[in-house]
């Protein structure tokens, strides 16, 4: 053994002992087989095993651990439930993983001020479950809401079907407790609904873990709508369905959500869940209106009429809460249902201005043909947030590369249409290389400077989000070539 190695081991052991003293023996994982299960999140195209996994229960413990890492100059990556789809929790040059799954306590419910205080490892759906009986709900509802954590939602600024009306995570986070990469605990924002000064909460939400580790959040709650109308409309093709989307929004009625599924997805979902979707349709829209019961029928009726004018062959209203729940269950589990069609798939996440939806969908089907890979579409049509699902088989290296290339080509098309690289999944490890499509080197530099305010040494989730001009190729080389 060389001297280097042995001193490295000594440092490793000393660090392990220090971390174990902070979080307890059962809060540290360092053996290979156990760590292996942490080598990727929902983005499975790349994997990398952390060297040490820490599972703290409190902000004080997180602070202690980050202080220990700060003294040694060691980088770290935070992880919640590992459901992210852009590799946000993939360790890239970050030996230590801080997992917030045990920080899952709901700290305080304050119905009078319509807010809730939670630890960052609380599962998204558990927030709504905790306040449902009082007539409230937490609006952001990503498809993974049964498992994903508030901390992960904050990192990725997650959305969900109801983003159309209610906005994304950043619109619902009032305050944060953040442990900076040097271990200092800071409070950002607060309980007040209006704030002054620079919006630091806004800078941390969507920073994808590059500002430190969020340990607690004060979230805003909304009144559960008095009533809902959920429409399922079948169209002969995706083109007519997406034109109807633009027309519905343009008419001035604002639905809570408009979701689209194309033929491939409809069939996968129907095979899996038997919800009674029309399997002969080219596309379906799920349009939901919520709010006061008065006037809801008129708005739903208007949407049905617009759908009909745009070629809908059939529109029906969910007749009961059970039917509505089934429809949403099918929609939210559509990604998984696709797993039945191919050994692997990768979900892309891009945004186009709503009126460009027909165009981008035509482009996606052209890409599908060019690359010889099936692509299904299930997405938040109301806000132009597309999710092409590219099917492939990881046992064929050619297919893996084609799936990656096809995804990138779709993203380029989104940007060319005036759109964006991500609606809600984040940039992560996946799309760092595409950032220059959207941002100039100056833009990226400013972003990096903002990040340095929180993380001057770039030890919090390093090698993510912002490609470094010049150094970028080098950083990404072990993974893939990133042209900048």
């Amino acid at each position, binding site marked *: 053994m060389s001297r280097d190695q042995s001193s490295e081991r000594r440092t490793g052991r000393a660090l392990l002992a220090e971390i174990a003293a902070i979080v307890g023996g059962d809060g540290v*994982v360092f*053996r*290979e*087989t*156990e760590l*292996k*299960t*942490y080598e*990727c*999140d*929902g983005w*499975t*195209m*790349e*994997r*990398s095993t952390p060297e040490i996994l820490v*599972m703290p229960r409190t902000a004080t413990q997180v602070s202690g651990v980050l202080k220990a890492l700060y003294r040694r100059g060691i980088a770290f990556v935070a992880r919640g*439930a*590992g*459901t992210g789809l852009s590799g946000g929790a993939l360790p*890239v040059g970050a030996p230590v993983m801080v997992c917030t*799954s*045990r920080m*899952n306590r709901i700290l305080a419910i304050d119905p009078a001020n319509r807010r809730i205080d939670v630890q960052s*490892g609380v*599962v998204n759906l558990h927030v709504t479950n905790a306040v449902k009986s009082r007539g409230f709900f937490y609006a952001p509802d990503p498809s*993974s809401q*049964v*498992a*994903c954590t508030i901390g992960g939602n904050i990192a990725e600024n997650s959305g969900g079907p109801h983003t159309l009306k209610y906005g994304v995570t950043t619109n619902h986070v009032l305050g944060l407790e953040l442990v900076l990469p040097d271990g200092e605990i800071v409070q950002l924002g607060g309980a007040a609904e209006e704030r002054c000064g620079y919006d630091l909460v806004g800078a941390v939400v969507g920073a994808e873990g590059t500002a430190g580790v969020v340990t607690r959040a004060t979230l805003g709650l909304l009144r559960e709508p008095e009533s809902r109308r959920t429409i399922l409309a079948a169209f002969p093709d995706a083109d007519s369905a997406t034109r109807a989307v633009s027309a519905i929004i343009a008419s001035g009625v604002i639905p809570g959500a408009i979701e689209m599924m194309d033929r491939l997805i409809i069939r996968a979902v129907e095979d*899996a869940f038997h919800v009674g979707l029309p399997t002969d349709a080219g596309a379906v829209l799920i349009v939901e209106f919520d709010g006061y019961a008065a006037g809801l029928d008129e708005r739903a009726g208007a949407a049905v009429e617009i759908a009909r004018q745009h070629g809908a062959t059939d529109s029906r209203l969910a007749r009961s809460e059970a039917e509505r729940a089934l429809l949403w269950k099918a929609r939210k*589990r*559509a*990604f*998984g*249902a*696709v*797993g*039945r069609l191919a*050994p*692997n*798939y990768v979900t892309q996440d891009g945004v186009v201005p709503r009126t460009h939806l027909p165009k981008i969908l035509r482009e996606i089907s052209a890409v599908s043909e060019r690359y010889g890979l099936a692509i299904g579409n299930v997405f938040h049509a109301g806000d132009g947030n597309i999710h092409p699902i590219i099917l492939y088989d*990881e*046992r*064929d*290296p*050619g297919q*893996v*590369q084609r799936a*990656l290339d096809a995804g990138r080509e779709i993203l380029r098309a989104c940007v060319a249409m005036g759109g964006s690289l991500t609606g809600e999944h984040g940039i992560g490890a996946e799309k760092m290389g595409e950032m220059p499509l959207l941002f100039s080197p100056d833009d990226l530099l400013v972003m990096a400077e903002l990040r340095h305010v929180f993380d001057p040494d770039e030890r919090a989730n390093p090698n993510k989000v912002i490609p470094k001009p010049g150094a970028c190729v080098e950083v990404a080389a*072990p*993974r*893939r070539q990133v042209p900048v």
Partner: protein
Amino acid sequence: MEQPGGSPPHPARDVADYELLFDCVHCGLCLEACPTYKVTRAEMDSPRGRVYLMKALAEGRAELDDDAARHFDLCLGCRGCETACPSGVRYGRLIEDTRAFVEANYRRSRGERMVRRALGMIFPYPRRLRAMLAPLRLAERLRMRGLIRLALSGRPREWIELLPPLAATPIARKSAARAEALDPDAPAVVVHHGCVTQVLANSENENSERILAAAGYRVTRLRGTVCCGALDLHSGNLKRARKFARENVRQIMQSGADALVSAASGCSTAIAEYGELLKDDPELAGPARALSAKVRELSGLVLERGAPKFREMRCTVTYHDACHLVHGLGVREAPRTLLKSIPGLRLIEMPESDMCCGSAGSYNLTEPAMARQLARRKAERILATKAQYVVLANPGCEFQIAAELRRRGSRAKVVHLADFLAMALAD
């Protein structure tokens, strides 16, 4: 870091059906449906983590070391993840195959080996189990069971605590109804008496028959009951599981029954999987498939012919979903519908009613620490409902939950669905 599009994975070891492992898309929707993940909140104790380990093992990227074996052992096999999984991962099948792989390739400590061997030698054979329990039964008659419990410590004491009263007459224990069904063309149903059930909870078998007869079915009986093989399936002994399966297929097909039920939901799902288990059997593959298709569940069958007349029972009940009933056979509503049809009964739902209580076959004997944590969680949910009865349809859950409620001094009664319905039958 491994590159995308690098060397393609290939199966190096036969851990489980390699193709089936690809059904998992690593989405994580199963996490919160997994009892062990709920407790440890660690990926390797989640279904996704276990499937990932199976795949890594199969591809030779991980070794079957103490950690790998430990995390597979810790799986309850409750199949709650199957209900949550959007991609249709056949987790139950995968974990059973993996357990067989572990048994064949991993050497446990001597103590563990002895415990497992003893369970396998005693439980499937009612006579042996009766003989083992005879001294305890005697002690109980002499009102000395408490003393025995105090004299023991560690695992044996925990095991004794789990056992139901052996000498007392269970509620609603009545002679097996041989009442002829009114309709000679009514479908014939056979109740598989199960190996442990007939020793520790035979009233559940007899009352199942009684309810079925009252609902208008012809009830037929097997000449003798052979263990269904569930215990072996869940502990990686596929060879003996197949042997038991073959005996059962022959015997049950001979009985001419149109449907089969079992008071133990684990037995029901095991028999429902015979088709898969014996698919390569030259002689019995077809009959095994046919038998698997006949597996039903008590309340569903009863509802099909219209619920019998129940007397009024003014009481509060909470219903616990036995794992293999709800996640294996997909039975959720029927028992509740039947219970709610009893006049005066108020059903109070507990949260997480479909989360495993930790019993899981012989799991509470081999993994007492985790089992106990889950029992506590279940007991808390039950006590919060303040219900007078906990009704469930699996003797294992009954013993596990009753033991935990006894420890807490609760007066809630834990009753098997068959016993409860028999109690409610109008005479």
